[in-house]
């Protein structure tokens, strides 16, 4: 098995507050890993640190994506390397047309990888195809990025971007939060479409529900900034039944 993502001894903090305390995680190509855990365990921090959000300081450790340490790269370079973060709260960007945004993103990544840029008609065609496959209303694409979108629509838009950009590593940060069952299925459908032997996924979630639709290979419990337990998909069901009580103490 070839490792796609290797996180070693990751320590990270925000405003001097330690959130991640020696986290180790290896995601092999073709695998889906679920990361579960109580509130405050550091789940979202992990996703932001991987994507390179300003304000999140890595104080020790490294994260190798295809053997390259991504902590030395800017967020856009990480994206061009194949990292995709589906945001828990996708941002609204008034005044930026969704299509302009998608075209700029796709072509910025292609340019950085030395590939030829896509023409507007070609891009529109691709976006429409994906929207159709995912059951996304194309009317959404005519609006500015996420503006006036419901929670569900925003997550659908994230999924569309993910499928369009064809990343090698997808990190989904609580993608199920605030989703009704239909939207949940759209997201799961998108993720499942991307499943491939070359790709890996990290699905961060508080609830087991999403994992009925995106079936993980490995489940981890994150607590107090490190992986407290690792198991198969049965672990998710156990957590659903028992709650996080036994891990809360550790977090406190």
């Amino acid at each position, binding site marked *: 098995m070839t490792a796609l993502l290797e996180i070693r001894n990751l320590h990270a903090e925000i405003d001097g507050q330690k959130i991640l305390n020696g986290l180790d995680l290896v995601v092999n190509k073709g695998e889906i890993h679920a990361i579960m855990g109580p509130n405050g365990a550091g789940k979202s921090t992990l996703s932001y640190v991987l*994507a*390179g*959000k*300003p304000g999140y300081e890595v104080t020790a450790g490294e994260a190798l994506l295809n053997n390259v340490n991504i902590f030395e790269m*800017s*967020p*856009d370079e*990480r*994206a*061009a390397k194949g990292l995709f*973060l589906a*945001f828990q709260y*996708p*941002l609204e*960007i*008034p*005044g*930026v047309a969704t299509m*302009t*945004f998608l075209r*700029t*993103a*796709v072509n*910025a*990544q292609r340019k*950085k990888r030395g590939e030829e840029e896509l023409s507007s008609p070609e891009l529109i065609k691709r976006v429409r195809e994906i929207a159709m496959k995912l059951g996304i209303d194309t009317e959404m694409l005519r609006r*500015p990025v996420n503006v006036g979108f419901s929670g569900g629509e925003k997550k659908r838009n994230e999924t569309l*971007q993910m499928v369009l*950009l064809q990343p090698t590593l997808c990190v989904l940060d609580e993608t199920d939060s605030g989703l009704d069952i239909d939207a949940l299925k759209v997201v799961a459908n998108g993720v499942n479409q991307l499943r491939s032997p070359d790709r890996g996924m990290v699905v961060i979630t508080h609830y087991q529900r999403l994992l009925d639709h995106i079936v993980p290979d490995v489940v981890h419990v994150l607590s107090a900034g490190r992986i407290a337990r690792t198991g198969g998909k049965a672990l998710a069901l156990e957590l659903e039944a028992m709650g996080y009580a036994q891990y809360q103490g550790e977090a406190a």
Partner: protein
Amino acid sequence: MNAEVRPMKTNAELALADIFAGAKRRLPGNDAVKAQRSGAFDDFMKSGLPHRRVEAWKYTDLRAIMRDAHPLAAPPSAEAKAKARSAGRALAHLRSRRMVIVDGAFAADLSDLVDLEAGVAIRSMAEALTSGDALISAYLGKVAPRDDASLTLNTALMGDGVVIHIAPGVTVERPIHLVFISTSDKPAAVFERSLVVVEPRAHLTLLETYEGPDESQYQVNTALELIVGDAARVDHLKMIAEGRAALHVATQLADIGQSATFNDFCFTTGGAVVRNQLFVRFKGQGAVADIRGVSLLAGRQHGDQTLVADHVAPGCESRETFKSVLDDEARAVFQGKINVHPGAQQTNARMMARALLLSSDAEADCKPELEIFADDVQCGHGSTTGKLNDEQKFYLMARGIPAREAEALLIQAFVGEVVEAIKNEGVKEALMNATLSWLR
């Protein structure tokens, strides 16, 4: 002992007195105009250049800024006219009717005066002042009248410009583009004055562009008087792209008639110091005006947008939206005042100013004012000043968009919100292109 209070004159004021004394005989105008000039100049000398203790000029101290008054620009040479041919390029794709004013003089040979549509009359201001044009005696100095020293100075020294008349009910299909260009490489001053009368039910799109060389410290004092007749419609766009060292002082006076529509947009990217003041008087019931502005400033540029909306008639609606993007040590000033006069019931007026600071040394000053003397009105104003949203920028970067490109997208979006409402697709395109080239 009673000493007479005689304020000290600045070098610039003394120079202006010399310029007026030397030029008043040859400045265009019949006896009535000459009398108007002399009266205006006397008034100007009493007040002097406006300074920071004059509330309306608080943030743009013209007396301190204008260390010297430059001599009046020489009539344009053949070389100057050659430069003017390519002026106003930003709006070239609109296929408008060009009226070219070079170094303050109307250039008929560069202007498109052939095959004027029926009901459209255009002539040079200098000619109109000399011949005693009926429009001059009826309107000049009477549109939304204002006691302002820079305007008074313009009236004293006004050289040329255009006089446009659109007959009642005429829809002018081609926009009319006033192309103002300064070409002098030596310090020079121009005083331009234009009068545009759009009679009832007529429609006109009026464009203005201002430009000049970056190397020269020229001074522009320009004024436009505009009458929007009853049920008429005027869409006005002004682009200030003056040279880097230029001083641009502009006054725009507008009277809006009953049920008329007036859309105004001022787009500023050029000039060292720009003062653009608009005085809009809502004279007829049910008039609607949408007044917008965008200033994109960098270096040590100073851009002042001053607006007074006078609601005299009842049931009028005004929207004012101004935005500025400021880099380096640039400074933007927005002063907006809504006056609701007694009897102007059911006025609906809203004003908003937003500034985006790209640098910690940039500054935005915003002074909104409401003066309401009627009891059944809806008026509001707001202002915000902030920097680029880091969360939005991170979101864009997380999708692979490099930092600079992400910032450019967000700035375009900020500007785009004001431009979006423009109906004319060509104008919209021109402004977004101008924004893009500013970002480069």
